[in-house]
């Protein structure tokens, strides 16, 4: 087993587990992106349900950028990071960055099902879903675009 016996040299000194990707602003590309986050969740041996939650949060962040951002580069920039707390808890972080027009968080109304029923507009649930499904969420937005950073613990 001489050839396969020890870890190949390049593998020993590896950096942080960070995978970055760019996807085009195009229909269903958000689903293509979820494959990546699922693979990284599986890499951490996260439960299928938690992976599903991260997938939906990612889908919501992507479709927000697709719909609202008017990305100057017609691209969405995703970064996935795997890490571990000093205490040992592992996490999966997802960053969704668009170079779009940004928005004012203070202007976003909290949704409710009753408001949805009363109004013609039934949308407005994306950010709410993201915040509910992820353990930590940070949103920064401005004229440069929008960045959503979200973390899920294993």
């Amino acid at each position: 087993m001489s050839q396969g016996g020890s870890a190949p040299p390049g593998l020993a000194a590896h950096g942080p587990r960070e995978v970055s990707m760019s996807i085009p602003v195009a229909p269903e590309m958000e689903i293509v992106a979820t494959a990546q986050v699922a693979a990284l969740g599986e890499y951490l041996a996260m439960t299928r349900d938690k992976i599903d939650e991260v997938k939906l949060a990612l889908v919501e962040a992507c479709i927000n950028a697709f719909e609202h951002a008017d990305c100057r580069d017609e691209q969405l920039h995703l970064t996935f990071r795997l890490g571990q707390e000093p205490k040992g808890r592992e996490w999966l972080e997802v960053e969704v960055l668009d170079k779009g027009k940004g928005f004012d968080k203070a202007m976003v109304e909290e949704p409710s099902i009753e408001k949805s029923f009363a109004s013609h507009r039934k949308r407005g649930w994306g950010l709410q879903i993201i915040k509910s499904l992820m353990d930590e969420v940070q949103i920064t937005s401005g004229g440069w675009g929008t960045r959503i950073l979200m973390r899920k613990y294993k």
Partner: protein
Amino acid sequence: MSEACKVSSERRGDVVILWTDGYINNQGGEEIAREAYAHLEQGARGLVLNLEKTRIVNSIGISILIEVLEKVMDRKGALAFCGLTPTIDKTFRIMGLAQYAEIYATEDEALRGVDAKTA
């Protein structure tokens, strides 16, 4: 695209069961709405949505489901869900959708629940 949601349905008395297969986004939601509205036009009063072959419903899809629910409620009918993954279940509860549309574990229970409400 393999992710396109397929919708099929079957009427049982006053109740219609709708099965989805795949991603429920705007297209998937519209597919469901089209099918549901056709049955409502033909007099169906109850709707059971079996999502057991769906793993993701995005918020656009959900907004369309809210429209369908509203139409059903306008007609004094009832809508119920079954076969939800834990994540879809959680999402529907977070949104308060579960207050207006019952969530059941199995199709049979959902059928009985909707039957009772529309009888």
